[in-house]
Structure formats: structure tokens, C-alpha cells
């Protein structure tokens, strides 16, 4: 049985993984300002220039919306590349979560020196939303950060790759233990 199959064999773990996958995806999409709540107007619109906008970046790893859907107070910008990024990151989170849950059920002696650090990799990707001239999270923290905003803006482009690397490292460490058991 492969390591992956082992991690999703338990139905509870699988369901938890899928739940976290979904929650992660929507949190990521909300954090980059493409999912909003409390919108009164109902509408569905698509850009006639969607081909031009499809790969147009508005900031590092954030792309131009090609459509908008507003229903039941929820506003969802349709940004295919960011949807793919969110799904890919979410899948890595899913793999990490199911692996962690599997390892937690192993006997203690099988998980000596194991830390759940891969999961921390989720965090940086939530910080990639950009507003106009400055990342959205920096604007909200500007009163605390003061003139350090520029420094944080300069490291901003590394956040998503950092997230990916941390998630991959977490997976590598987890699957090493799962394979050995």
C-alpha cells in the first residue's frame, strides 16, 4: 500500500482532509480579496476581454479577474489562475493534514523527533493579497509597522514560494515516517 493510500484509508481522516482542503481554499481566496461577504447586489458578469485578462498579473501571484458572481450576499471574483493556485495549495494542505492525522495514530516510538511544522506552511500564502500600491495585510497593519511597510512589501513576493516549500518539506518529513511504518 502506498503512503498516500495509507493516509486516506481512515474515512474520518479523509473527511477531515477534504474539509480542511475546502476551508483552506476559501480562506486563501478571501485573503487575496477575491471572496467577499455582505454584498447586497445580485449579478453575474464576464469580461468580453477575458482572453487578455486571463494571465494579466496585478501583483506577484495575483491575476486579473475575468468575471464576477454575486449571489446570496457572497461576491466571488472569477480568476482562473488564482483558482488553480488555491486548489494546488489546498491539495498540498490536504496531503499534509491526512499525513499528520495518520502519524498521530502511530505508536509514540514511531514518531520520535517528528514535528508538525509542515502545516505552518499554510500561513504565508494567506498574505499574498494586494490592494493598490501595498499588500492588503500591510495596509491594515500599517499603524503598527510604520515605515517598515516598504521592507515587508519587498519580501512579499517570496511568501507564496515559501508556503509551497514549507508544505513540501512537511510532506517529505511525514511521508518518510509513513513509509517506514
Amino acid at each position, binding site marked *: 500500500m502506498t503512503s498516500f493510500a495509507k493516509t486516506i484509508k481512515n474515512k474520518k481522516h479523509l473527511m477531515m482532509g477534504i474539509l480542511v482542503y475546502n476551508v483552506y481554499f476559501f480562506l486563501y481566496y478571501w485573503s487575496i480579496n477575491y471572496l467577499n461577504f455582505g454584498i447586497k447586489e445580485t449579478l453575474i458578469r464576464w469580461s468580453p476581454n477575458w482572453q487578455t485578462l486571463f494571465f494579466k*498579473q496585478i501583483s506577484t501571484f495575483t491575476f486579473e479577474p475575468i468575471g464576477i458572481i454575486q449571489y446570496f450576499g457572497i461576491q466571488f471574483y472569477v480568476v482562473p489562475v488564482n483558482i488553480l*493556485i488555491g486548489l494546488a495549495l489546498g491539495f498540498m494542505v490536504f496531503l499534509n493534514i491526512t499525513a499528520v492525522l495518520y502519524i498521530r495514530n502511530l505508536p509514540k516510538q514511531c514518531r520520535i523527533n517528528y514535528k508538525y511544522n509542515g502545516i505552518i506552511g499554510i500561513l504565508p500564502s494567506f498574505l499574498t493579497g494586494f490592494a493598490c500600491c501595498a499588500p492588503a495585510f500591510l495596509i491594515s497593519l500599517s499603524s503598527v509597522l510604520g*515605515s517598515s511597510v516598504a521592507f515587508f512589501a519587498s519580501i512579499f513576493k517570496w511568501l507564496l514560494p515559501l508556503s*509551497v516549500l514549507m508544505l*513540501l518539506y512537511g510532506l517529505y518529513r511525514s511521508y518518510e515516517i509513513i513509509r517506514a511504518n
Partner: protein
Amino acid sequence: MKKIITVVVIVALLGSSVLFYLLAQSNNTSTQPDTQTDTVQTTGDISESDDLMKHITSGGPPKDGIPPIEDPVYESVSDSDYLNDYDKVFVYESNDGIYLYPQRILVWHEIVNDYIDDKQISITYCPLTGSAICYLGDAEHKDNTYGTSGKLLNSNLVMYDRSTDSYIPQILGEGINGDLNQVVLPTEPILWSDWIDAKRLYPNAKVLSKDTGFFRDYNSDPYGTYLPDDERSYYYFGGPFFPVMYADDTFSDKKTVVGVKSDNHVVALDPFLIKEVKVLQFDLGTTKAVAVYDERLKAVRVFSRELNGTLYDFKPSTEGFIDQNGQHWNYNGIHEELQLIPLTYFDVMWFAWYAYYPDTEVIE
């Protein structure tokens, strides 16, 4: 087999993230400023030895990542019912009519390129420095349009010229590299006003529509609001986000001043003073100027006092001002067939004005 699939999935994810990273890097690299270090002469107060290109920082987005509006659509005042009474609008008074640009749309686009009165104009707005300026093409490139470079100088929007790729810091209004190096762009006045005042004065104005060709949340402003009770608004509180070349505490950083330029001289006017005295005469080098408080729009206008060889002395009057001969001029600087010439002036946050013009005169 499943093991192979797992490995393939992981490698694909890693590969795609590297690909996206490289894509992002290549996009950013293409917008890096030139490495030229020529001395740049500016409009007045920044010394010749200062190299403005050296002080340019990345704001984050790539070139035109903040997308200018290229084919603006306008609607009537009555169709713009989504605007609140105290929303800020930028008023552009052309021969062709009055155009109103809601700040809540401009905050997401920063530049509107349009063709009005048979000339190419660009309405530019930088939310970080609270400056809205209308630029025209320079004499050799009359049909220039401008884009957002994704760069900042003194926390201020750096535009780029689409035909020459030169950088033009918005407040400076002058090219700092390439073909437009040291070329000063002509301007036309834009006035800040509240929606309630602008629509009352100009009920037939054309209002920039939310139909911009892009999807943005025009009901929200990431920096806060211009409402006086918004205690967390970037527009009123805190310092600049990005480094500035010079700083001063004559006023608070976000205090609005009216920056005026003429004859290589610059002056910062306190709009509260103009509101109090209604008409203020002052000199910028050899230019005799007058600042007038327009009660209708609650905005300051600045004109040259010289017209057709005559120097006028103005005093306040109802619905405008009067000259030494008792002739009445309206707020737009018009008396019968005569029209005073507006200077280059615009509202701007104090920190940004001072950062460009540390030797500025201040009238408060």
C-alpha cells in the same frame, strides 16, 4: 504505480510553483528601472546632484498591474446614484463639458486616459500621496498616454510614458529618464470636491462609470475613507508607507496643502487660510499669482494675475472676486471674454510635497 503517481503529483506541484515564481520574477524584472545614474535636474528645489532614479522603489505590482482606464465610459449624474454625498470626486472642467471622476474608482486604477477637447489627457491620482493631477502629452508627443509603472518615488505614483517608456513621478510631472528626461508635462487643473457639491453645481456633468472593463470592488477603498470620523484612515493618520527623500514636521504628514509651481518656484498653500481670506495674492519668482476659494466646490483655484499685459489686483466678492477696476470675475477666473490662466496646482499630502520640494515656500 500509485507511488509513481504520488511522486508525479508532488513534482508537478513543485514545478508549477517554480514556474509561477519565474513568471512573476520575469514580469518584475521587465519593469526594473534603468540603471542609468545621470544627474537629473528637476523643476526647482531638488539639487542637481540628486539622482531620482536611485530613490525609486517597487510598490509591488508590475507595470500596469494597477490597470489604467483606457476607454472610459461616462454616465449622467442621475445614473451615478451609488455615490454618497461626501464621496470625493475630481472635477475636470473642459470646453466640452464637465467631467467628474469618483475617487473610489480612481483608487483602483490611478490613471484615466481619454481624448477630450481634441486632445489626449490623463487624469492621474495617487492614493498614497492624495494627489490628483491632469496631464497632457508633451509638445513632441501630444498623443501620449501614461501607464502605472508599479514603482514609487517618495511614496508617490511613478507613471511611465507609453511611447518612450520614460518614468514620470506624478507630483514632479517631469520625465526622469529616457527620451522625456527633464521634459516637464503640461497640466490642467483638477479640483477635489464632495459629490453633493459637484452634482449641485454641475447637474449635467459626465461621471466616470463603474463599467471600467475591470472587476474591482468600487464600494470599498483599501486605504480607508475621506470621512472625517474614519479614525483608521490612511488618508488622515500615520506616516508614508514607503521611503521619502526629505521629511519635515511643519504640518502633519497627511495634512492637505495646495502645491503650486511656476517659473521653477514652488509654494505650499494651506487651504484653510485661503478658505478664511477667500482671495490670496502671492508671488512665485516672477509670477504674480492669486489663490481663490471656490465656495461652490469648496476647493482652491490658483491663477496668474497677469493677463494680456495687465496685472490685476483682486479682492473677494460674492460668487467670485473683483479687480482694481471693480470688474467682477467668477470663480472660474472669467470676466466677460477674459479668462485668467490657471497655474500648475493640485492638492497633495504635505509629506509628499516636501519630499520632492524641501525648499518649498509655505504660506499658512
